[in-house]
């Protein structure tokens, strides 16, 4: 108890003495956390949206002719042998025409002069969720194109590819901003503590002569690092939450946010971001103390 109260008193003194530098470091940590968590939030939501898109993934194989029952069985076997699927649906020319008519609704009359058999028959394949990458989907699609009677395979290539590239880009940004977060928090806190150590060299020397233990000298600096991490990340996340709420209110209605069901970090994720920031800041402080303070 005496240890804690003495250390807290010492920390309070240090903070009072070095508050302008501490404040600047706090802002830097907050900004780094804000930048990182901003991109990370978008990335997380895109990944989630990707998962949802995968649920809806459907590959349509357009055929030259309607396959007979025996041929259908053979096609199913060939498809499932290549990759497990949830469902395979055969659509005849007639069914395809009916579906188009239903989709046209009131404008159905545009089909009046057309032959009901003008649409090609098709097979709709709903793959299992094990198709994780674009390359796997492409490979499956290429295989389906080689099936007997297949003319063309469609799965919204353009959209899936764009989405995939966007997610890749986001991943790079998240890594870069994560790297930025690590560098800024660790180095800024280490630098601040280094400055504090240099500024208080005379005091530390006297403390050593009076019999201060390593714990007595180091702990207040580590508490400063801990507080930088805790307050800095909390402020950064709070700012992000306000930004998120503002975007949510401002952009309600049909749009991308509705499409991908944008959500904020879960409490667990918030805890992890704060914990990592604390760890980085305290670690930065510790490394600085080891390097610049010979006790």
């Amino acid at each position, binding site marked *: 108890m*005496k*240890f804690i*109260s*003495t250390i807290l*008193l*010492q920390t309070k003194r240090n903070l009072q003495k070095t508050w302008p530098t501490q404040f600047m470091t706090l802002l830097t940590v907050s900004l780094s956390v804000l930048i990182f968590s901003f991109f990370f939030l978008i990335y997380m939501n895109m990944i989630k949206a990707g998962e949802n898109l995968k649920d809806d993934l459907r590959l349509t194989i357009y055929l030259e002719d309607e396959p007979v029952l025996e041929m259908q069985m053979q096609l199913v076997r060939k498809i499932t042998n290549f990759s497990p699927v949830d469902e395979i649906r055969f659509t005849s020319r007639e069914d395809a025409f009916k579906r188009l008519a239903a989709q046209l609704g009131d404008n159905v009359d545009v089909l009046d002069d057309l032959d009901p058999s003008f649409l090609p028959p098709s097979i709709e394949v709903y793959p299992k969720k094990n198709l994780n990458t674009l390359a796997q989907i492409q490979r499956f699609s290429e295989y389906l194109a080689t099936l007997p009677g297949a003319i063309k395979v469609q799965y919204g290539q353009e959209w899936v590819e764009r989405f995939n590239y966007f997610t890749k880009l986001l991943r790079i940004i998240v890594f870069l901003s994560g790297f930025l977060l690590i560098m800024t928090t660790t180095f800024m806190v280490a630098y601040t503590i280094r400055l504090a150590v240099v500024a208080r060299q*005379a*005091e530390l*020397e*006297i*403390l*050593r*002569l*009076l*019999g*201060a*233990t*390593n714990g*007595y000298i180091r702990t207040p600096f580590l508490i400063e690092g801990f507080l930088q991490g805790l307050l800095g990340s909390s402020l950064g996340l709070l700012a992000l939450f306000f930004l998120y709420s503002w975007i949510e209110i401002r952009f309600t209605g049909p749009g991308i946010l509705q499409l991908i069901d944008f959500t904020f970090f879960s409490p667990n994720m918030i805890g992890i971001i704060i914990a990592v920031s604390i760890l980085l800041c305290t670690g930065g402080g510790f490394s600085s103390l080891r390097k610049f303070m010979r*006790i």
Partner: protein
Amino acid sequence: MNIQPGNKSIIEIFKATKIYTPDVVALEDISLSVPSGEMLFVTGMSGAGKTTLLKLICGMEHPDKGLVEVAGKNLTRIKDKEIPRLRQQIGMAYQDFKLLPDRTVAQNIAMAMEVSYQNIRTIKKRVKELLQKLRLEHKHDALAGKLSRGEQQRVAIARSIANSPSLILADEPTGNLDSRTTRLVMDLFEQCNTAGATVIIATHDEAIYKNSIHRVLELYGGHILTQADRSISPLNNMP
């Protein structure tokens, strides 16, 4: 590690030599034994090696040759983690005071007790008590940097005894004090000694040890003068 009053010998120095670079011999082949509870004066001219001797005893410096033992611990081989514990039991009043000018008088004195995690209430009480004894109570909240040298010296002395150490080392504690304040400070050291502390005072102020009943050790050119040497000591030949 505990420095207990009543131990046979609290300080044992055997053939200790200290040479500062490049080749300044501060102490040479010094041997000294200080029983626990003794009050000892170390005298000598400037540069005789008084401060170096105190620095060897408190572990600020290590001998180049020989052995320095405090409370049975060889200071050249003492483990790093044992040093703070030992220093907490040694109160040292430095010649250059080593005060923090931007801290108050009370805070400077309290530092010595804070490092050994003493209760805040106990610290406050002890600081007030010491300031009263040294007639500095009106300077409680004054910044140490704003004090006169005599006042700073008293603050340094108060800090050295604040933790009630078993061993008190005072380097020229009365150098900046008038005769009345000198008496006040010496009375305080006497009180500490009576309470069981070993007190070593390095001084060249003859007035404070002349009529003292305590042992006086004279240094000259890094050597301890024996009784025979003393007759030819320059201090004794001074007008």
